[in-house]
């Protein structure tokens, strides 16, 4: 569905990605693991169109999307949940959700109901300002907002960041459910164990390069991965 071919992305003169290639098959959950500064977020931003790779191509549903802008990509069905949640703290929960459907035309009522059903807490708090929610609720709001765009591919950038372990579990469960209902997911995580549990495939990034890839099951057993990311 999505294939990233040898992209190189720079911040000014600093090269952040050196030939990163990633395949995301339709209907799967693919995760990108790696330490801080490995280039995970840069990869996500390059796919979402926020950053433009200097070299390499990105294709989505057999269409070249390498230099497209984020708003076009949202229309094409790629939604990003940015790192650190990035909800609109001065708008209400409901307004946040409506903003998620910014690029859509026609009625969004049905999808609003559906999203509220999945996240009952958001329904309860719908007229509260986004900034007053707890961290976990904000993350749910960010995911719910991305779903409002009806994405075919959902990009999740570290959804577990700064959240309590129990809530992390909930979030990953939700991600799995979303995937089972047909949305392809690309997940960036530092929480390697949780991510590998729900993912089909995984890539490990280190200093802007893919150093390992394979099925999630294989990587869970891989001794070097265990040592570096799982803490055994």
């Amino acid at each position, binding site marked *: 569905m999505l294939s990233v071919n040898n992209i190189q992305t720079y911040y000014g003169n600093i090269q952040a990605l050196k030939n990163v290639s990633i395949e995301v098959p339709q209907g799967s959950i693919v995760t990108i693991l790696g330490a801080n500064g490995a280039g995970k977020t840069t990869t996500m931003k390059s796919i979402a169109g*926020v950053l433009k790779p200097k070299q390499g191509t990105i294709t989505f549903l057999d269409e070249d999307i390498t230099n497209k802008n984020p708003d076009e990509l949202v229309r094409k069905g790629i939604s990003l949940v940015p790192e650190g949640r990035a909800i609109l703290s001065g708008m209400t929960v409901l307004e946040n959700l409506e*903003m998620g459907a910014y690029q859509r035309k026609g009625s969004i009522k049905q999808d609003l109901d559906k999203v509220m059903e999945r996240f009952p807490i958001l329904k309860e708090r719908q007229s509260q300002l986004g900034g007053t929610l707890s961290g976990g609720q904000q993350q749910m709001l960010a995911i719910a907002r991305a779903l409002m765009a009806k994405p075919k591919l959902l990009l999740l950038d570290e959804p577990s960041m700064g959240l309590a372990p129990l809530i992390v579990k909930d979030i990953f469960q939700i991600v799995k459910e979303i995937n089972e209902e047909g949305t392809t997911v690309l997940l960036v995580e530092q929480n390697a164990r949780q991510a590998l549990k729900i993912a089909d495939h995984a890539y490990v990034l280190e200093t802007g390069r893919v150093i390992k890839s394979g099925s999630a099951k294989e990587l869970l057993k891989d001794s070097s991965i265990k040592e570096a990311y799982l803490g055994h």
Partner: protein
Amino acid sequence: MLAEIINPYYLQVLSFILINIILGVSIYITLSTGQLSLGHAGFMSIGAYTSAILTLNYDFPLVVGVILGALLAGIVGILIGIPTLRLQGVYLAIATLGFGEVVRVLFINWESLTQGAIGISSIPHFGRELVTGLRDTGFTADMIGIRNNQLISLLVFIILLVITVLLITFFVRQNHSRVGRAFAAIKMDENAAEAMGINITYYKVLAFAQGAMVAGFAGALYAHVTAYISPSDFAYHRAVEILIFAVFGGSEVIWGPIFGATFLTAMPELLREVSEYRYMIYGIILVAMMAFRPQGLIDHEMIYKIKSRKKKKKKVEDDKKERNRHGVGS
């Protein structure tokens, strides 16, 4: 009777308040996407000079001059807005401040067109133009029992009032539309807005150009109300003055800069003694506001409270009515 009520001096003060309100609205629009501009005096001068020169030298009708002045300011706004897109906060302020100075120096030195530092005088005054027009249709001031200069001031005030109300209505409506939502999202969090598929470039340039156009519009009106403009009217002082409207009144809601412009324009007129210290007071206001109420006097919370109090009052009344009706019924 009307002759005793109408005081041309007060009407003129009110007219300046209205022009300043339009300027306040112009800075509000730019600020509503989080862009801090100190170039609004520059945009204002572009509107003023364009309209003044077109009507004076080329005999353009006044209305056409004002519209072209506003449009040119808007176009320059787009040209400035695009390259400064990536600048944020204080860097954008410095860049736009530089722009304002460049425009001012240009008007000082382009003497063949602008008469340099002397300025342009005897610009068609739109009150007088209107009165002349009315006279042709057979209407004169003494028909409603007032003097000619009273009629002029009255007409200027009424027209400015209508324009201001229309402008405010337009931007209040825009705030509740798709565009307004996009502006608000960009101001709150640009990254989040981008992730939602909002075209940041488009909306930021749109806000900047709208702000520039409205400032140019205000400038053009100013030229035809004072009938005299010079580059010093649009110096750094003016840019700060416009910004102060928003800093003092608040830039979160449109009513903030409107209140700021009204209060700060009326204040030196009401307290004649302090008008000399105007800029000193502006400085004090800036420092005090930053320290105690950085969001300005009128903010979201205040509007929210006013609205909910109204609702509550209404509810209490409704309840009372309901109870009375039941009381009668039983």
